[in-house]
């Protein structure tokens, strides 16, 4: 029996998607454990030490099981349908970003010729999910959290997009793979260093704005527990809460992975003689490094206020990224 070619490609994409989901789950479990340990050591504590033996490595697994077994409470006054759907939309939004992440030269879901544009577009879906969660919970704190996250994420998408356009212009392509291929041959060819100083500025703007995109400190206002109890997921419990949690951590990975792809050379090794190490190792470790920086910031800095957040976005990031974009365009044109 001959299997038609389209079935085979379908099968491959299903397997790849399953692989990505497994990767996300494992990454979230690891990240959760790491974040606890890092925060603990930054704060002179030990963190989880008991579960599973060595430094409590099984703690996130125990937590995941606990969340799965917990009762799924839907408030009587909630808009039940929206309430049920919202966490999946949020998770889907951040999972969809994985489709164009080039883990290695031949390991990419689909090499869209508009990869960067696609990523910016699908990560915006998250906002809809958050708004649905906040609105349907019928809780004032949730509503505040949703409103904050909507205004914050929509505002910060602009500097994120403008910052990502700098390497796109330099590479002359929106395809993730092509952008990475343009950075071959050592760390001095990475876009963060290649078109100095424009892309360095773009990288800094992108990194800070992506913190706001993924609701991490010091921009974690939508879920600021001391102000809004827990923000948009105040009313969620059990597995639905776990989905928000998954989405937050996979969001952290997605924004870091995009930074690694377009600014830090993707799967390329920093030195040519190190290229015998598989590309996926370089890619994941670059992204993981940025995730660690995010954690480090979270446990060091206080939180900004909502108007200060907007001030930074519209009056600092936006003009800088605009001017930066103009200059880099000019530079590309003059260079020919």
């Amino acid at each position, binding site marked *: 029996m001959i299997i038609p070619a389209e079935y085979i490609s379908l099968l491959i994409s299903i397997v790849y998607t399953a692989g990505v989901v497994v990767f996300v789950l494992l990454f979230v479990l690891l990240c959760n454990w790491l974040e606890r340990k890092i*925060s603990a050591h930054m*704060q*002179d504590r030990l963190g989880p030490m008991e579960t599973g033996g060595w430094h409590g490595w099984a703690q996130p697994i125990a937590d995941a099981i606990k969340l799965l077994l917990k009762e799924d409470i839907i408030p009587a006054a909630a808009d039940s349908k929206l309430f049920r759907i919202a966490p999946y939309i949020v998770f889907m939004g951040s999972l969809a970003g994985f489709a164009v992440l080039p883990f290695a030269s031949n390991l990419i879901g689909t090499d869209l010729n508009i990869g960067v544009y696609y990523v910016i577009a699908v990560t915006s879906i998250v906002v809809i999910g958050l708004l649905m969660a906040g609105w349907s919970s019928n809780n004032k704190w949730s509503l*505040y959290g949703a409103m904050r996250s909507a205004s914050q994420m929509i505002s910060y998408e602009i500097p994120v997009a403008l910052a990502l356009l700098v390497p796109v212009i330099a590479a002359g392509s929106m395809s993730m793979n092509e952008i990475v291929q343009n950075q071959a041959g050592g760390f001095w060819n990475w876009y963060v260093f290649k078109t100095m100083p424009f892309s360095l500025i773009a990288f800094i703007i992108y990194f800070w704005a992506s913190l706001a995109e993924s609701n991490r400190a010091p921009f974690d206002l939508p879920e600021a527990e001391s102000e809004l*109890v827990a923000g948009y997921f105040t009313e969620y419990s059990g597995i639905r809460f776990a989905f928000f949690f998954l989405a937050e951590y996979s969001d952290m990975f997605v924004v870091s992975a995009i930074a690694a792809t377009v600014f830090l050379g993707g799967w390329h090794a920093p030195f040519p003689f190190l290229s015998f190490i598989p590309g996926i190792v370089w890619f994941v470790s670059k992204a993981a490094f940025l995730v660690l920086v995010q954690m480090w910031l979270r446990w*060091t*800095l*206080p939180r900004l*206020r*909502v108007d200060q957040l907007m001030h930074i976005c519209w009056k600092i990031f936006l003009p800088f990224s605009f001017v930066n974009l103009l200059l880099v365009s000019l530079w590309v044109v003059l260079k020919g």
Partner: protein
Amino acid sequence: MKETKELNLPLGPELNKWELLSKGEDPFGEQMTLQMGPQHPATHGVLRLELETDGEAVTKITPYIGYLHRCFEKVAESVTYPQVVPYCDRMDYLAGMNMCLGYVLAVEKLMEIEVNDRVQTLRVMVNELNRIASHCVALATYGLDIGAWTPLLYLFQAREHILDILEELSGARMLFNYIRIGGLAKDIPDNGWTKKVENFLGYFEPKIPELNDLLSYNKIFIERTANVGAMSQEIAIAYGVTGPNLRATGFDYDMRRDAPYSGYENYEFEPQLGSGEQGKPGDCWDRYIVRVREMGESMKIIRQALDRLPEGDVQEKIPKNFNKMPVGEVYTSTEAPRGELGIYLVSDGTKIPYRVKARSGAYCSVSALPAFASGVLIADLVAIVASIDIVLGEVDR
């Protein structure tokens, strides 16, 4: 003083609003009523704030208290004089020593008991230790409410050392019941307790610059707290706000210096004043930094007390039972970490107090909240509530 007149209780107009609503009109407009507390992570216990909000802006604040009311004053009217002492610990459970001292001084004043120098010095020492512990909690939770997690752990660690020291002394970690009428529960243990206090001071000295690096002069922290919730001197005085909150407005008033008790006149220290260093005088940052600097002053006092600690008995001769109390009334006020603690004591000659009234600093701070905190954002309100450093046990008593 104008602000005080604009306050009106919400009951009357609120009822009218519901009436209008039943007729199909919308009296609330864009306003949303928000219940902040009693179960909210940033209300430091069980304070309930009813907020009228317009978007994120808070247009009106009404604090509701009483969720932690434990009838201190009424209980005090039904137990004997010495039996009241453990209840005092439970008023401000973060500063039990200071609470007990206030009450004990009132009883001693009524009975005209003079305690010796050793008792006085030890009392000053444990008071200042407890003040540092209390300020540690205040600053730690303040950072937490602004979103900085890490200072919380560092400060609680320092507090842990103080609690260990006080535990060795009294056997308890928070509710000490150590300061008694006419003296102290027991003398200091002879395993080098004073050495441990010295060690703690050596350990804590560098912690304050560390805190300043981590939190006090952090750009984001200053952005969040400077120019936020500035309390004017007029409002502070009109509402009877005392303690660090009053000193943060620049008003130089410290009971330890202005009306010394328990031998405070023999110590050298400077009351720390807010000067609007980063913004306006009396803003949240001033209230914060006054507490930080006060910890340094407390350490100075403890050092002096350690140097002078005389020998002596820690319990004066007092009547076995309190059957023959002098008739009369006394008022003492002491400087507790959260403002002036006043104890008004009326005796009718029996062994049970006729009336005990406690005036707490935190209660006055809460009552001033609507006068100086209206018109801010919700996030600012969280910072303001944290900065006035209330303990609901003391507010409700």
